[in-house]
């Protein structure tokens, strides 16, 4: 009867969740995201479905080695489950489940069964996803591949539960986490040493690795190592679990299925017969999980981390002056300890010291210094795209606190300015550091051309002036998206997921690139005109610098207009039209 109630709960939880998401598709912003996401998934996963997958998978001669390697990986995963964790056994429940189920007349075995049933959803989707990623199916054996993955994940899940119970028992008997880890690592060390010695003294030497090693020979050697001596015995139970995944057809699969299920059965018996109290730790775990979810939902990923320490103020905030500076200061503080004058001075010192230490290698193209210079300049260029995505301590972070921002007595443009300044400043500082590294390390000779320090300085200065202005515009675009499509940026369990999220991210990414490219066009035109006009009068490097200054000024004007416009939108932004706050 109770099992029926739990099954009812789980079934309806999924059904209602699905229904809610389907209903949400009536709103165009979700529907459009879902369509784009669906097309992307179709293009990536399913377009080859009718043609029977991408390939038949691993060549036959490597199947056995691959199976042994998969078994070895499984063994490592199992060992990690004994070495890494340090907490007591705790089943992960939501706070609502704890409130309803723990005081209810439900036995612990039923709770474990419920937990096992609940975890099947994640296991099921993981199995499907990995089967699709692998694209190893040949039409009809998609099901076999998916079942193979399910067996592996379900077995690992059972083992994870059983090992957590066993670890708790050991802790109750006085075996500390560190002592347990040391004992296991010693045992692993002994076994590995024994195997290495056995291989060294019983098998021929491995094939030479220099030049172009013979892969077939290498494969045979690996096969010899994995199929003789103690290793096959060590990997035997793990081979049983992975064997169905490597079955060539339905017949082989069915033959391999029995032993794999037997291993699962043994683990299941181990879990069910372990008499370990998990309730108290589960309640604590559910509380912590709920707190982390709440923190993430409030946009505070920092608070969601396990350890948190107050951030040092990046600068002294005076009580009077432009209120936008307060938001800038707040967002810099939220960025953590890395955003301090001391940290940046330390980084500059490292770049300058290491740069001049490698200077001798940069006189000619090639060498570590030149490689680092190109890498730094490449990073500075790419930062225009990844920077605004990674640094989100702006309206994207403060979106759940928009009601607080709306209360502040400041015009909308100041809110927007204050919000985008922090990520813009951090990004610009990172870019300047990379430019400094490029300036110091760039070779004097490149492609047969001499590039003097004065020329390099002109190029670096032009980039140093233009990049922050581009950053500002690049950061305004996602912040504009927050105000136009706030639901797309909603975090936590009520935020969009699945097809919708993927579609929305794709739309945002392409939209951002398009808007950025369009907004850069006028500045690029100004740069080109100035550069062409001055090219006959001054050296090229100076022309680049002279062209860069008005281009940067134009970008700043564009950014100013953007901030004004977004400010007006923020002032008219109606929180009640969104689902961000409770009405």
């Amino acid at each position: 009867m109770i099992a029926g109630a739990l099954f009812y709960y789980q079934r309806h939880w999924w059904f209602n969740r699905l229904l809610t998401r389907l209903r949400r598709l009536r709103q165009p912003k979700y529907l459009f995201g879902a369509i784009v996401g669906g097309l992307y998934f179709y293009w990536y996963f399913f377009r080859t479905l009718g043609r029977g997958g991408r390939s038949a998978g691993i060549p036959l001669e490597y199947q056995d080695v691959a199976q042994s390697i998969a078994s070895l990986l499984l063994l490592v995963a199992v060992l990690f489950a004994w070495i890494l964790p340090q907490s007591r056994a705790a089943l992960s429940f939501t706070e609502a489940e704890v409130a309803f189920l723990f005081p209810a007349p439900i036995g612990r075995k039923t709770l474990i069964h419920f937990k096992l049933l609940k975890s099947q959803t994640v296991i099921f989707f993981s199995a499907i996803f990995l089967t699709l990623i692998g694209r190893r199916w040949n039409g009809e054996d998609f099901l076999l591949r998916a079942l193979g993955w399910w067996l592996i994940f379900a077995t690992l899940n059972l083992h994870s539960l059983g090992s957590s119970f066993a670890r708790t028992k050991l802790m109750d008997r006085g075996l500390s986490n560190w002592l347990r880890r040391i004992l296991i690592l010693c045992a692993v060390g002994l076994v590995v040493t024994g195997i290495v010695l056995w291989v060294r003294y019983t098998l021929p030497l491995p094939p030479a690795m220099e030049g172009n090693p013979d892969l077939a020979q290498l494969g045979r050697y690996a096969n010899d190592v994995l199929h003789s001596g103690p290793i096959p015995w060590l990997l035997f139970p793990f081979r049983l679990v992975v064997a169905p995944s490597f079955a060539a057809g339905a017949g082989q699969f069915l033959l391999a299925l029995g032993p794999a299920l037997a291993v699962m059965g043994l683990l299941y018996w181990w879990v069910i017969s372990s008499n370990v109290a998990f309730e108290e730790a589960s309640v604590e775990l559910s509380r912590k999980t709920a707190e982390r979810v709440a923190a993430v939902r409030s946009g505070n990923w920092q608070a969601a981390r396990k350890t948190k320490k107050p951030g040092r103020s990046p600068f002294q905030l005076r009580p009077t002056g432009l209120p936008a500076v307060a938001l800038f200061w707040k967002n810099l503080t939220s960025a953590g300890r890395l955003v301090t004058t001391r940290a940046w001075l330390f980084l500059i010192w490292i770049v300058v010291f290491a740069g001049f230490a490698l200077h001798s290698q940069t006189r000619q193209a090639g060498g570590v210094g030149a490689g680092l210079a190109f890498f730094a300049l490449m990073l500075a260029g790419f930062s225009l795209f990844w920077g605004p995505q990674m640094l989100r301590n702006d309206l994207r972070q403060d979106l759940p606190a928009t009601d607080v921002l709306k209360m502040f007595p400041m015009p909308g443009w100041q809110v927007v300015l204050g919000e985008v300044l922090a990520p813009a400043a951090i990004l610009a500082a990172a870019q300047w550091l990379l430019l400094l590294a490029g300036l110091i390390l760039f070779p004097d000779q490149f492609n047969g051309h001499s590039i003097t320090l004065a020329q390099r300085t002109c190029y670096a200065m032009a980039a140093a002036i233009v990049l922050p202005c581009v950053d500002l515009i690049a950061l305004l675009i996602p912040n504009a998206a927050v105000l136009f499509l706030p639901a797309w940026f909603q975090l936590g369990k009520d935020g969009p997921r699945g097809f919708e999220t993927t579609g929305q991210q794709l739309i945002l990414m392409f939209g951002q690139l398009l808007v950025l490219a369009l907004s850069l066009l006028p500045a690029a035109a100004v740069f080109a005109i100035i550069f062409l006009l001055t090219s006959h009068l001054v050296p090229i490097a100076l022309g680049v610098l002279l062209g860069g200054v008005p281009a940067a000024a134009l970008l700043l004007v564009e950014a100013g207009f953007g901030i004004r416009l977004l400010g007006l939108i923020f002032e008219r932004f109606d929180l009640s039209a969104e689902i961000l706050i409770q009405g």
Partner: protein
Amino acid sequence: MFPHQGRSLVFSLGSPAVMFPRMETAPPVITQNAAPALIEVEGLTKLYSDFPAVTDLSFAVRPGEVIGLVGPNGAGKTTTLRCLAGIIPATRGSVRICGRDLATQTIEAKRRLAFFSDEPRLFDYLTVEQHLIFTARIYGVANYREIARPLLEELEMADKTDKLPGELSRGMKQKLAIACGLLHSPEVIFFDEPLTGLDPIGIRRMKDSILKRSRAGAAILISSHLLHLLEEVCSHVLILKNGRKIVDGSLGEVRQKFSEQSGDTSFEEVFFRATGENKDAP
């Protein structure tokens, strides 16, 4: 100039002995208040798509008045408060705070108000002290140190200045939110369920704090389901149902209006009669 700016603000909050003395007086005495209203609401309407959350609401709150906003769930109390605090825009109607139109003189109006939601809204990555510095800059409180230092001491938070909100108890978070909200000496204060999650001492302190603010001349609007709280601290009451005003007036007037025979009908009884709710329903 608002009468309780500067240091005197400190003594409206704080330790039980100094800032929250035993409540000696009853709710604010109702007198004919001729002062201009600090909160003026005219025809306020808020629609969520086509759904009217608040319809044609008008009322005024004068200095020293504490008005209780009550009504069943979904009556539109929180929506009203959010509209008045400028968090969400009204669909129709006007709101004036200290004579400033909230729609056209937004910043001047917001500078004069404070809104306290049922859950303290704090930034998780700013410490107690950083919250005060941040708020001071937003509201331009030049002498915030003079106000904040004794304020923290009296709030029993002087040793917690470097703590993050995550390290504070709920009551402490509430105190911090109040300290931030009162730092700029607001003339108009909105409370949404101010007693949520407070222990008995915290409840007493909150009630006393509300009364002290009202005596100092602030106009206060409290939304709450706790009718006994409203009876204790409110001079006036406004009952909403389905987004519409059922009745407003002083506590005595409202009680009189819904008393069948005698004038000593409890406010709970008044509420049930006014809203037409069945108090005996399970």
